[in-house]
């Protein structure tokens, strides 16, 4: 199935040479990233280098035909990490061809889609696999092979997805941080379905807005993007187990004046039972504080997850997320997001600060600080306790 998708994609791309008309837009960026750790790693085998650099490159090749009803994208992503080979990645974030009619669109190939409204956790967003080795915040995604059909109607937009090939989650390797005491062997995953990665998944998404309310409804049937972890027979590794699941999701946002009220909820059924989870809260923004150009946002979200211990671990079970977003609205688009997630049952907390700005026209810098505290042995984030880090990245755009 994977081969068929990529062959047809290649054929599509080959037929799109500029000589055939249309417009090709090529851009790229190269990012140098360094992570600085100041604690001694907790687990045997973890590299104790204080500075762990990596290089990331993204190339975007986009094509549009003259009449504007066809487009294609080819976006290879490369990551090379000096410390943890499991963090090395070659991915196609996007590699698709799309045809757009008056009120419909057909897309064939690899793509990334995002569903949802909340900031602290993305419950309903299920189409793309998480590149967890890339970033522990779960916002880095892997390109998902798909055929999708979107219908645009007065009563909203509806998209049906056929997902013919499954992407496995990336995990930090033995050398890397952010792993359990026993490393995850991502290459020897187990599947409930005998078709393994070739199991064909389906998804359906409805999205619309009514005045101040934006609504999304979603359904998914197929291989869970979120694996359980089970010890290997020799006990030297944890193996990801991908169950078959059905998930229904709803996301709502009510936008009134400077308030954004948000809610996401899911029900997921699988081999190990049923999960109900929800996250809700608000984002309130004070514009041009103290007669400056800067905006200050306040975010508060509550995360509930009623999953049993048999299910994949989550740190977002009974947590309060409180954050502030500063947008300076300057020429360099300087912005800071600083947030704290606090587990009301176990007193674990996770601090996350992200600051970014542009330098000149083509350089972009980002600083991230992440720290874990309050975890006792047995708590979910205990294995991350020595993984506090600062990450600095500088990207050049071409």
């Amino acid at each position, binding site marked *: 199935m994977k081969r068929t998708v990529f062959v047809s994609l290649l054929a599509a791309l080959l037929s799109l040479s500029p000589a055939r008309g249309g417009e090709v837009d090529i*851009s790229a*960026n190269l990012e140098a990233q360094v992570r600085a750790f100041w604690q001694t790693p907790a687990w045997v085998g973890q590299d104790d280098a204080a500075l762990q650099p990596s290089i990331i490159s993204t190339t975007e090749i*986009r094509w549009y035909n003259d009449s504007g009803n066809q*487009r294609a*994208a080819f976006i290879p992503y490369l990551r090379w990490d000096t410390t943890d080979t499991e963090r090395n990645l070659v991915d196609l974030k996007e590699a698709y061809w*799309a045809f*757009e009619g*008056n*009120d419909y*669109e057909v897309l064939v190939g690899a793509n*990334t*889609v*995002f569903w949802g*409204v909340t900031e602290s956790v993305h419950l309903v967003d299920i189409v793309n696999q998480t590149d967890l080795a890339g970033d522990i915040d779960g*916002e880095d995604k892997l390109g998902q092979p798909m055929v999708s059909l*979107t219908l*645009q109607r007065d009563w909203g*937009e509806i998209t049906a997805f056929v997902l013919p090939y499954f992407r496995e989650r990336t995990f930090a390797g033995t050398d890397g941080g952010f792993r359990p005491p026993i490393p995850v062997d991502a290459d020897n995953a187990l599947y409930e379905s005998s078709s393994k990665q070739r199991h064909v998944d389906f998804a359906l998404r409805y*999205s619309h*807005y009514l005045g101040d309310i*934006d609504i999304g409804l979603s359904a998914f049937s197929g291989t869970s993007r979120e694996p359980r972890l089970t010890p290997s027979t020799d006990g030297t590794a944890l193996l990801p187990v991908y169950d078959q699941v059905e998930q229904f999701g709803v996301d709502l*946002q009510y*936008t009134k*004046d*400077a*308030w*954004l009220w948000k809610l996401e909820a899911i029900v997921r059924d699988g081999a190990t039972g049923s999960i109900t989870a929800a996250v809700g809260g608000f984002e309130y*923004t004070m*514009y*041009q504080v103290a007669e400056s*150009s800067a*905006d200050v946002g306040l975010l508060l979200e509550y995360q509930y997850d009623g999953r049993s211990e048999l299910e994949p671990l989550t740190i977002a079970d009974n947590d309060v997320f409180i954050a502030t977003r500063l947008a300076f*609205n*300057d*020429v*360099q*688009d300087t912005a800071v997001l600083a947030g704290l997630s606090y587990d009301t049952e176990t007193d674990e907390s996770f601090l996350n600060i992200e600051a970014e700005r*542009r330098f*000149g*026209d*083509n350089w*972009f810098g980002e600083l991230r600080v992440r720290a874990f505290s309050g975890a006792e042995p047995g708590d979910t984030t205990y294995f991350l306790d020595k993984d506090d880090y600062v990450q600095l990245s500088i*990207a050049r*755009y*071409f």
Partner: protein
Amino acid sequence: MKQISIKIRDIIWPAVAAMLLVSFADSAHGNSDIERGFEIAARSDRTDVGFGDSQVELTMVLRNAAGQESSRSLKITTLEKPDESVGDKSLVVFDTPRDIEGTALLSHAKILDPDDQWLYLPALKRVKRISSANKSGPFVGSEFAFEDFTAIELNKFDYTYVREEQCGKFICDVVERTPRYENSGYTKQVSWVDQTDYQLRKVEFYDRRGDLLKVLELTDYRNYDGVWRAHKLSMSNVQTNKQTDLIYGDYTFNTGLAANDFVKGRLSRLR
């Protein structure tokens, strides 16, 4: 008779006094000035009616007080809603700086209610409904506020005619306009509309304290089969000495766009 005449006098004198008071108030902002101000603005607005839809690429040049420049390139697509009680729909897509390439802002303008706005963030491929209460905030770090882009609907303002004066090679009507919508950063705007082509030539923006904040000059007007468009908009902040120029390329009109091209779902299908 006497009693009746007294009664009439009792009625007439307060009425005359009230009329005198009203006409006194009117001498400052006469009904005729209000009507005339609206007529001038409406005549200018209606030179635009029937453009259907338009597409234009532009460069935004931001200059700080020290003269340092940086630029952004963007594309604006607009769908006209001919009914003056309904706002236009517009889509702004950024091409540069490269790190925000593909970022898009979709606006469904309303007249007095807050606009509906969605932002597309290409890094996460995320469509986000955003608050449109931020009327007076700077648009992408420029001297243009959000409302300077979106508040161009006729009925978003009250108008008063001020005077007539020379403006460049034209004779202009000077019309004061005050925002009727909430969250504006302006107490008033003074606009210059020429008497030949009925186009806006200059606008002064007064801040919440009533002080002059910014001056917008619209130049390089070109006529597209009867529809005028300025191709250079210079916004100067007289309080900070910063300036933003918008330099427009050629417009294309009636490209066949429809309401379906301005729905939120389209944001993730643009590229």
